[in-house]
């Protein structure tokens, strides 16, 4: 078993071989100009910060490749567009939420975003999002996979597509990580298990159990892994199935991780207190901080989930409670990425499955699901900040300009990553799929 050898510390050669292979994959499929840069970055394990990705030549004809990484902040439950980024002052529908001005002339956001209002120059607001799924499960599924949920197949989410189409840069860390998303928002779908996300429940605890128990010497551990491998091989011979193989895969990954010099990426305790404070001490804030650390260690796709947006009851009280974590943590993240020169190569997305009804249900002071129109944000990674894209009608009921379907949003993200939108990948059952189900990238959003 490779892992036993890995564990005993003779991993350098293996790791280097793997790295160069991965680096090739990454280079072969993506922008040529980053060849030297990113290759060196992966091998040297110090990320290169000022690479001008997507400068000119692009390996995939027509793909942008302006971003290397994605930090996807998922607002679970359906974020009210009227109370966040698409305000309708002076209407009955607005309720008590008020608009404030920002550091960009003409862009106004909710009063609950005092910090974020000073970062609007980095952000592109899309106010013309549209989905045709008005139930959580289906909406969430569509947002993450671009496909409708079907009984017969499970579709991969964006991080899995990225891993499948471009491979990992860092061979000892997973290609994508999902923080706080215990609803199974991200998934490998029909792709091989190795493309599945690594879930992190509590970001401040990092990756639990990632150290060999002190009482077990390395040689004993290696021996155990060897016995385990033999035993499992016998089982797999009789029961060769995807879910059995998936456990071989995660055990391999787990042992690689244990041995990784990049394991510290998961340990946010290494951050100065002031930084941890700035991101916010709540789980979402610490998740955003962890996302930044992971990106720095060449994990390319990190999702962080902030729940509680399902404001059927007492919408305004709940909004007042939900917005501050997003305000504080996203602001800190953008500022931090910017200061580190990472924002240019990192696309930050704020996504949600749908908006909420302009009508306020009087009996419970709430707003219901509203997929016909809602808001999402993009920042960094080649996006032109300080713009509002698309428009809803006077009450925020329907999109009247430049509709962006959920698939289009995903196509835009994929485009930024340099993923081939038209490349067909076949499921094991032989069915054809593409990365954003024929969504169209919104090029106007890019600088």
């Amino acid at each position, binding site marked *: 078993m490779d892992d036993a050898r890995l564990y005993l510390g003779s991993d350098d050669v293996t790791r280097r071989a793997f790295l160069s292979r991965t680096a090739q994959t990454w280079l072969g499929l993506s922008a040529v100009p980053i060849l030297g840069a990113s290759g060196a970055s992966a091998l040297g394990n110090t990320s290169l910060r000022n690479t001008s990705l997507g400068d000119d030549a692009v390996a995939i004809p027509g793909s942008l490749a302006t971003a290397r990484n994605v930090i996807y902040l998922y607002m679970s439950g359906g974020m009210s567009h009227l109370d966040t980024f698409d305000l309708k002052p002076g209407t009955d529908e607005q309720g008590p939420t008020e608009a404030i001005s920002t550091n960009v002339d003409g862009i106004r956001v909710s009063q609950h975003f005092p910090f974020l209002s000073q970062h609007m120059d980095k952000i592109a607001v899309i106010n013309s999002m549209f989905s045709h799924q008005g139930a959580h499960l289906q909406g969430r599924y569509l947002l993450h996979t671009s496909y409708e949920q079907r009984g017969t197949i499970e579709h991969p989410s964006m991080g899995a597509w990225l891993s499948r189409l471009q491979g990992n840069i860092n061979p000892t860390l997973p290609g994508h990580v999902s923080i706080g998303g215990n609803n199974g928002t991200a998934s490998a779908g029909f792709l091989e298990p190795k493309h599945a996300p690594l879930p992190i429940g509590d970001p401040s605890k990092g990756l639990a159990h990632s150290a060999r128990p002190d009482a077990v010497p390395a040689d004993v551990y290696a021996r155990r892994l060897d016995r385990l491998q033999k035993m499992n091989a016998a*089982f797999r011979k009789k029961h060769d199935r995807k879910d059995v193989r998936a456990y071989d895969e995660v055990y391999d990954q787990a042992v690689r991780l244990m041995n990784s010099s990049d394991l510290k990426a998961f340990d946010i305790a290494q951050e100065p207190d002031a930084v941890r404070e700035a991101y916010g001490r709540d789980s979402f804030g610490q998740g955003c901080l962890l996302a930044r650390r992971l990106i720095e260690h060449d994990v390319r796709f990190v999702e962080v989930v902030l729940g509680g947006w399902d404001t059927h009851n007492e919408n305004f009280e709940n909004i007042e409670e939900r917005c501050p974590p997003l305000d504080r943590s996203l602001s800190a993240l953008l500022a931090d990425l910017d200061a580190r020169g990472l924002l240019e190569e990192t696309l930050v997305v704020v996504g949600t499955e749908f908006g909420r009804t302009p009508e306020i249900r009087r009996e419970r002071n709430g707003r219901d699901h509203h997929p016909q129109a809602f808001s999402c944000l993009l920042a960094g990674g080649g996006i032109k900040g300080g713009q509002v894209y698309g428009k809803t009608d006077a009450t925020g009921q329907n999109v009247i300009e430049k509709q962006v379907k959920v698939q289009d949003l995903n196509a835009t993200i994929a485009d930024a990553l340099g993923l081939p939108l038209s490349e067909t990948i076949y499921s094991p059952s032989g069915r054809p799929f593409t990365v954003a189900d024929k969504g169209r990238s919104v090029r106007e959003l890019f600088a």
Partner: protein
Amino acid sequence: MDDGRLDPTDFPPRPNPRGPASRRRGFTSIALLSGSALLGLVLLAHLATSSSAQDSAAEKYADSDPAKPTTVEPAPSQPRRSSEEIESAAAELDRILESRLEGLELEPNPNVDDTTFLRRLFLDVVGRIPTAAEQAEFNRDSKDVRRSRWIDRLLTSPGHVSHAFNYWSDVLRMKNRLNNQVSGLPYVHWLKQSLVDNKPYDQQVKELLGASGPAYARGNGATGYLLRDRGMPLDNMATSVRVFLGTRLECAQCHNHPTEPWKQRQFFEMAAFAGGLRYSHLEPRELRGYRQLQQRVRKDDGQQAFRQVRRAVFTLSAGIGGDGNGLARLPSDYEYDDAKPRDLVTAKSIFSNGIELHPKLPREPRRKRKNRRNRPVNAPSIDSRTAFASWVASTDNPRFTRVIVNRMWERYFGQSLTPKFDDLKGESVAIHPELEASLERWMRSFDYDLIEFQRVLLRTRAYQRKAFCLESSKSRYAFQGPLLRRLTAEQLWDSLVTLVVPDLDDTVRVEPPGVAALYNGYEALESGSPDTLLATLQESGPALTDPRAQMRQTQRQAQAIFRRYHRGVRRRDAEVQQKARAELEALGLDVDRFLKSRRYGRDLVRASEVGQPAPAAHFLREFGQSDRDQTESSHQDANVPQALRLLNGFVDQRLLRSKNSVLSTNLKRAKRPQAKIRTAFTHILSRPPSQEESRLWLADVRQYGNAAYQDLVWTLLNSHEFRFQR
């Protein structure tokens, strides 16, 4: 994982002053009476009967509405049908299945060996691996009857209640805390009690859908199903239709369904059955009275008194009101020709056995202003919710029976007869239509008695065949045998804990800790009015409205006493121990269980007792327990944290380093290397080692000495064979 915090689940509730204290113990002692299933059944029957008579609140609700019985029926949980009847049903199913397989030119798998069968049966029925003692006992039983005997025995054991509870908790979204801070404990209690009583499935569904009244009245926990989705009656209806009728209507909430025949109008006609639903059982007028009282108290008596009153009103008012006015309003963006936006529609169900209600349309004030458009519909109740419940859970409903037989079949075979039975379409066909029809007939003839139905499934030859492995087999799957599958999070946890704690199923409790305080609080307050509420509160003190504070205090006291007890143990001072025991008992604790939980770890209880759901970073959640926000969202997918936990976490901390776990005790007891290896295999994999395995591990023992046993245990627990069920 033991972070030293006190876990409220450690503490059994104070015995209900008005109920026999033996109740809880009666249930939990069954596991100890191994071999005496019959006695267990008698006990079950006894406790159910005794619990039925004790509660005035429950009786009151049963009296006020005979259609919604909330008292507990005498326990039917022993097998009622004769063995012959069950056998003949099983034989019919086998005949149909085998002839169909022959038609498809598929060979059924051979009969599975007894060793594999026993592990499968335990995992499927009680949700954990069998202990070594249980394996030995099975092996002593006479060969020709032991499978049937153990099927019956396990189906009526506390372990089955625990395992079935986990399954239904995922379906019904059990939570300790429901939305809006309403406690979910009565809901949890309701489900467990229903399982203990083996309440017929159709009756359970009727209770859930038709629930009304106070959430905290003993026996009325079914209200949790609606309270769960407070403010979201439309979503609740869509979930009900999915869960009980296998039909997805949620798309039609916003538009006509693109591929199925459901229209948006039909969605709202279905929603109309719950028209006028309120998330409090008090009339709006009464509620207003209490609100005014709260404000008055805030003004006159200050914040603390206000908080107390607010809590009291909360306890008193939580519940479900409005029995259904049969009306719903179309959304304001309704865009089809058959009605105008915001029109009222009347209750009408989908499907061929449809029902239609004709409530009198209320006269509506003319809409003058825009913000009037969302006025709730104000109309008298016509009991449309009960009508809805009866329609859903009816033998005539074409999908009601079909869904439950597919559920049950899937639980035991790993796949349903009709694929995606929670998303049935016009064209959905079962893999064996005739078999499905036969199962439906049996389900009806058993009056939806799930225990009897499961007896049949488990007794089929089909269930007792070797497992089918989907990918490695070339032929298509048509139930040649049950499917190989990964254990659920709960099965894995319960199996691991079985290796640590003896008589693990003792930890299963019907009544969740803390719920009695809620019931008592409600009861003390319920006769009141705003005027008498203050007097009641003054009389009874703050404990009434803050059961958690009461529980915390008990915990602190118990912890202090336990320290004294422990000192007594260390000094071998019997008198100190005895005194501490008496004090613990005076606190209302089940002393033996309390001490046992201290000995093996307070957190090492059955998954069903951990909390609903388990905390986010718990083993259970990591291995796929649902967060209970959406129905059936548990999973069995592999991920890296699971591997890390088994590699370096639970196995190492709770098993290898434990000195008093069941496994380490028995390993110590086995003297010769061969016996030790065998012990590890039988405990963990429920089978003896093969000759080859014995040889390999003996070689390791010779080379590495005692350390090899640790390696062995670690290896077996990390193996595929442990986490997969064959």
